[in-house]
């Protein structure tokens, strides 16, 4: 039986919710931006009117203001957006239980099994579109197709408040003329490589030989070729936007640039603390520590190293992160943002290789200590107990667990 997949994309999600709650700004250009005083001042989403002025997601507030001086800037209200994302999921859940979130505002739905009950994919898509408008007051664009890649492409073609169908009959007319950069997972650098080979459209990608693409792009070459031809058979996995299975990480753009090792140390400990806390919450341990550094010219680098044992204690994670940091950063420039991530996850109760020599007992003690800290924080708040190093600089000592922002997770899991 042919699969029926919907991809639902809430249009200008943050901006739409803000405009719903503030009718006075609804007919004006609006951008939801990070807080400038915390140096998070970039455009997160903009409404359709701001879009017409050429305001783009990711640019700095001053750049957006240059294009559109009367732009209304709104600070984000994440709890409200999460509530709306949840409400949207409840609408989807009336049609299927196979819902895979891709970021906060996009979902894939496998409705193959529901066609007998609710009619064709298109009919369900239209119903979802109407319901979203009536019940939530925001609009959604839906792509209907027989695989996930084309469904996602479809939802991007017509927006806002629209349904696009990509079938086996029409995909060559609709999908193939599109620029190759529109395809899922063709990012900036892949796009450049492909364009250098005169592969400018998805159709040209589909017509290339997979072996050739593999030589150029590695195994991704073949994957992209299957995407372009509609052979993508990745299933819609039941996954919420809160799931992060491959790794757990936090990063932060700091209120001021980091100037010294001491600064970096404070932040690394704060981030490691929150990463470890989330690992414990999800009952996971990790073996690999990655760090991410971005300097004040926005140049960034990522490095990683392995731990001796999988852990969910913040001490070893922070120590490792600090070592990687010292080995890889030479302080040519001050740092704007830092991230710590733990990957290579195993469930916390899986077997470990014991050792005669290094301090296994110490690690167990440390883990017990940190679990007690969790309990204290649960009852008395995040700042009830903390590391001494974090007290030396209050502005850097944020609470990344609560201020954690949800980003799209990987497509393959």
């Amino acid at each position: 039986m042919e699969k029926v997949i919907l991809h639902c994309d809430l249009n200008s999600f943050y901006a739409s919710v803000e405009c719903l709650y503030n009718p006075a700004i609804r007919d004006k250009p609006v951008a939801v931006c990070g807080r400038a005083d915390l140096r998070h001042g970039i455009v997160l989403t903009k409404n359709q009117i701001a879009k017409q002025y050429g305001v783009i997601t990711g640019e700095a507030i001053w750049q957006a203001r240059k294009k559109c001086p009367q732009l209304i800037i709104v600070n984000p209200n994440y709890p409200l957006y999460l509530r709306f994302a949840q409400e949207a999921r409840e609408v989807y859940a009336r049609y299927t239980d196979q819902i895979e979130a891709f970021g906060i505002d996009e979902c894939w739905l496998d409705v193959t099994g529901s066609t007998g009950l609710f009619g064709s994919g298109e009919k369900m898509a239209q119903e979802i579109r109407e319901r979203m408008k009536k019940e939530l007051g925001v609009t959604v664009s839906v792509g209907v197709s027989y695989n996930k890649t084309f469904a996602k492409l479809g939802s991007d073609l017509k927006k806002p408040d629209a349904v696009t169908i990509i079938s086996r009959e029409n995909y060559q007319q609709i999908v193939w003329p599109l620029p190759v950069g529109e395809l899922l997972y063709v990012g900036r650098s892949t796009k450049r490589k492909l364009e250098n080979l005169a592969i400018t459209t998805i159709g040209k990608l589909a017509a290339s030989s997979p072996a050739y693409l593999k030589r150029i792009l590695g195994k991704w070459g073949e994957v992209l070729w299957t995407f372009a031809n509609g052979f993508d058979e990745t299933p819609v996995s039941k996954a919420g936007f809160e799931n992060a299975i491959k790794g757990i990480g936090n990063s932060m753009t700091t209120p001021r640039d980091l100037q010294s090792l001491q600064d970096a140390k404070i932040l690394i400990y704060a981030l490691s603390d929150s990463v470890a806390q989330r690992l414990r919450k999800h009952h996971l341990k990790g073996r690999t520590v990655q760090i991410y550094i971005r300097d004040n010219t926005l140049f960034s680098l990522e490095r990683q190293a392995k731990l001796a044992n999988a852990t969910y204690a913040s001490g070893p994670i922070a120590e490792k992160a600090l070592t990687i940091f010292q080995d890889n950063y030479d302080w040519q420039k001050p740092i704007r943002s830092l991230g710590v991530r733990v990957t290579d996850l195993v469930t916390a109760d899986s077997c470990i290789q014991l050792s005669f020599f290094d301090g296994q007992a110490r690690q167990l003690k440390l883990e017990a200590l940190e679990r007690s800290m969790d309990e204290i924080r649960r009852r008395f708040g995040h700042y009830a107990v903390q590391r001494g190093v974090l007290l030396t600089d209050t502005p850097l000592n944020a609470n990344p667990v609560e201020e954690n922002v949800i980003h799209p997770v990987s497509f393959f899991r």
Partner: protein
Amino acid sequence: MKKVFVDVTAEFSREGSLLPRSFIWENGVKYEIDRVYECCKAASLKVGGQGLRYRCRVRGKEVYLFFEEGRWFMEGKK
């Protein structure tokens, strides 16, 4: 139009449904709700909000009463 939050007296039924019985408007006047026609999830585009929308008859007129995140609001004239 403006969003007017109101004090509401409501009833929980044994089955778990929630029905508003009366509300106090911003001028202090108490209005009885004669009948609830319908209750569904909806957004208020007029004043900005989203929740359970009760379509009610009050003194012969039809009005909407919204229940959003534990608070009740109505769509005020100005």
